[in-house]
């Protein structure tokens, strides 16, 4: 065949294929077309095999015509295949549809108790300020809970803390600690200054569990003993922790107070976090929320643990964790913290 004839046959093959492709309605039809127009016995193949029958210089032109026709057919089939499969795919996806809003399965996260959450936050703040975390027993000797802390027997300040005693040893010598301060004594007994520690823990008072009281609650205390510690350091440290915990808009207020184990003694409050000092029901319109007590370690306490008060000075502070929890999470009933009701616990 002549060169032109061959080129025409290639072109015809393309036109025929294009017509069939346009008419194809399934992917299988296309596979069949593909085989018939591009496969071994296809017209284009016949043309390609006939190339060698034309003169050398014309072979390239025929080859190009075959390649072009082949590329066009492939392209048209691919385009048609995409068109056809989009429909199929939609049907297939429809069949695969799942409703994820049904919710998850087999996994339910638990919840940390709100006291644990605030407890950890407080520890982290103080660790950030350079403090270690110290612990001690919950059942204590009178010496650690009172006497070493400058509460002599019969001291009226003992009446401030209604104590639960334990039936062990001499009467009223073994007790459930009324504050975490005995840990301060234990730390100072076992370690020489510099001391920078906080003592979170569980403490006890002679109260019955109801909406507002609990015989058990949690405190965190802090102790710094070093050379040159001042009352200014105490005030600044408490302010730093209040900023770290509540943010820069919340500041600290200090008023003189009395505790047997510190002198001078202060009590401290933070700007009410709810009204930022404007006055609201949480802070009884005062703009301040009482947090706890603090002061410079009394020389009598240093004497009890054999630390030289002329060389070292120190400060101590303490406040209630539960109170902070109640404040920050708006927990009205103390009892909720203790009855293990999951309707309460799962909120945190």
């Amino acid at each position, binding site marked *: 065949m002549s060169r032109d004839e061959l080129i025409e046959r290639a072109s015809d093959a393309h036109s025929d294929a294009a017509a069939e492709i346009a008419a194809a309605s399934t992917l299988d039809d296309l596979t069949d077309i593909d085989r018939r127009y591009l496969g071994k016995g296809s017209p284009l193949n016949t043309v390609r095999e006939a190339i060698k029958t034309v003169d050398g210089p014309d072979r390239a032109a025929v080859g190009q015509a075959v390649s072009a026709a082949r590329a066009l057919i492939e392209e048209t089939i691919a385009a048609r295949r995409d068109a056809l499969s989009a429909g199929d795919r939609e049907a297939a996806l429809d069949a695969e549809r799942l409703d994820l809003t049904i919710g998850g399965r087999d996994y339910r996260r638990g919840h940390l108790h709100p006291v644990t959450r605030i407890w950890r936050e407080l520890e982290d703040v103080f660790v950030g300020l350079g403090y270690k975390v110290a612990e001690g027993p919950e059942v204590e000797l009178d010496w650690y809970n009172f006497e070493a802390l400058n509460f002599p027997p019969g001291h009226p300040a003992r009446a401030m803390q209604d104590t639960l005693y334990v039936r062990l040893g001499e009467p009223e010598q073994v007790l459930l600690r009324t504050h975490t301060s005995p840990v301060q004594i234990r730390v100072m007994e076992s370690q020489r200054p510099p001391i920078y520690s906080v003592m979170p823990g569980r403490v006890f008072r002679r109260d019955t569990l109801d909406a507002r009281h609990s015989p058990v609650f949690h405190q965190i205390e802090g102790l710094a003993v070093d050379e040159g510690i001042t009352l200014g*350091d105490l005030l600044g440290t408490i302010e730093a922790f209040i900023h770290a915990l509540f943010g820069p808009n919340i500041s600290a207020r200090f008023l003189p107070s009395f505790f047997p184990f510190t002198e001078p003694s202060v009590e401290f409050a933070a700007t009410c976090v709810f009204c930022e000092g404007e006055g609201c029901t949480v802070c009884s319109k005062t703009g301040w929320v009482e947090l706890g007590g603090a002061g410079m370690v009394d020389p009598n306490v240093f004497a009890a643990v054999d630390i030289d008060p002329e060389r070292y000075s120190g400060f101590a502070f303490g406040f209630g964790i539960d109170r902070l929890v109640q404040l920050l999470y708006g927990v009205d009933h103390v009892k909720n913290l203790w009855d293990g009701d999951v309707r309460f616990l799962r909120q945190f």
Partner: protein
Amino acid sequence: MRAPLSWIREFTPVEAAPADVADALNQLGLEVEEIDEPGREINGVIVAKILDVVPHPDADRIRLADIDYGDGQLRVVCGAPNIEPGMVVPYARLGAVLPGDFKIERRKIRGVVSEGMLCSPRELGLGDDHGGILALAPDAPLGADVREVLGLDDVVFHLAITPNRPDAMGITGVAREIAAAFGLPFTLAAEEPASVVDAIGESRVVVEARDRCPRFVAMTATVTMGPSPDWMQQRLRLAGMRPISNVVDVTNYVMLERCRPLHAFDLGRLAGKGIVVRLATAGEQMETLDGVVRTLTNEDLLICDATGVPQGIAGIMGGADAEVSDSTTEILLESAYFEPTGIARSAKRIGLRSEASARFERGIDPNGTASGAQRAMDLFAEVAGAQPAAGTIDEYPAPVTRPRISVRSARVNALLGTELDATAMQALLTPLGVETEGTGADFVAVAPTFRPDLQREIDVVEEVARRVGLQNIPRTVPSNPAKTGSLTPEQRERRAIADVLVGAGYDEAYTLPLLAPADLTRTGTEGFGVVEVENPLRAEESILRPALLPGLLRAAAFNAAHGTSDVALFELGTVFAPPPLGEPLPRESLSCAMVRTGSVRRAPHEPDRPVTTADVVAVVEALAAELRLADWRLEAVGDALGFHPTRAAAVIVDGQRAGVVGEVAEHARRALDLAVPVVVCELDVAVLAGGRRRPRRASLVSRFPASSIDLAFVVADTVPATAVRETLRAAAGAMGEQVELFDIFRAESLGPGRVSLAFTCSFRAPDRTLTDAEVATLRQAAIDAVVAAHGAELRA
């Protein structure tokens, strides 16, 4: 302590607004709990006189009072029993407002119109007395505002006084602080009695217990009993005390004014007309003023008559025998200084705290004893027509001197972070009654005896801080560069344990560490040794928990009772056991417990399923993995307290029992009213975390494929699956990668008490693909080992 502003002004001319006075008191450490303006809620109540009282036409108890209110007369309906013609009373006119925003309008009462209302003390907010209409002074001007007549135009500061400040338990002490804060003069006339005598007539004082009663002052006078004048009654009311009679009111007045508790005895009823101060004998009894018979110990101090019969518990409360009454004509006034801790102990032991004991136990001024008695005598003369007898008995063998305290100004600054010179410090101290001596950097502070809290240099440091004002002290932080903060490994691991449990779906509960013995009986754990609370308020909180599970199970039962029976709870907390021999304190350990009840929720994907022991075992496995325990296993246990005898396993770490996991005992489940499956675990954290750990080192991950084989064995059903698994692991040796139990099968065809356990074992070499021959050898070795160790047969 309630301090009316008008009373304070008798001692210092403060004119500042009440809010500013309160602020100053707060800054000085006298905490103002409340600023009470008692008249603020009363409006339109005036003085009226009752002209006539006539019966109500339609009611027995209600009467009609014709009154004159200065500008006119009208009629009001009144239900009070005490009205009578001539009585001067508070009259709330139409449009008046009473406390509680109670507006007075014209009303008809049983058909008779009432043009306003006569008021009881309670209706005016003056306490709880609602027994009748308040009687005003007969000479009160008609039509005057009752707020002025009753002194209700005053401001009362409610103060919370710390235990170190007896002086601030008196108006004068509060006034002294205010004078210092505002730079005002403070004036207090403290006159000493004229002459000291051994006896006044027949009256003598014998102090047997000198160390408990370092000073005793007595004076006598004839008196005319009656009510005290209005001004005194008003002040007492504002200060929160009830007026009783002129004599008693004077003693209370001086107590409130000067923190000087006094006691007046009816001299005519005091046998021998004298006083003996002695310790009680153990078991001695006396009846106090409140009508209660008190049993005493030999540490309680008594004020007795000359024959030794108790007439009062010193510093706490008087007795009924020699109490002043309407018929009293002559009194003996006691003004004493008692040793503070003795009073504190007695008050606590007897369970009686009075206004007097609150002051004595803080330590009143021993040197104000006589002047306080003189102040009372002057008032007796003024309000009770008293004629004092000549002379004063003053038993004060060892006068208390003022402490002389050396103060180093450099030390003060070093502790406060201030830069004050000694002169400035002295100027701050003087208005507090502290005299100073010396002109250098170091000086002597001579403290007043009404401030027993001032004994040491540090006490003076505190005074300087109070006077400087805490808001004026620069805020710094300690600058030691060596301080580094961290949690200990134990503290970090405790958090990790809680986090694993939260990840496993458990909610953290806190349960009270105080339990009832019944909590143990109920949960079958009464076998634990317990530590008892000596003085519990109630039986429910009378022992320290020996384990967490009794409390945690109670929490689960609480949830079930409130409609949530599917719960997963955990707790991390201290448990208590009796002390080891020779130790004073109980053994405390940190325990970790879990309770899971009801169903595992799987709906709507699949049906819910009941919880099983495997649910808790999974958590134990997760904890062991978190802690990288090198050697731990479960071992069936039949006698664990509170556990099901055949559905429990001990958690063994390094051969030591860390705790138990399993189902709760059936009787416990029923006793707790839990109608659903309950699986639990309790672990001793110290044993768990004390276990040897796998090194925190990565091992090579092989690039070569694994070969897996399945093997099923028939064994006796008493053979623990974990034992077979361990045998397979050991047999696989270094090539073993994983051994997993994937099927448990029981059938008659296996024979009675036999069970089929099917395992997948996978083998892999780090450096090559295992050949079929190698795998076949490993397979045979595994089979041989299990057959030999457990009497197993391989299932075809």
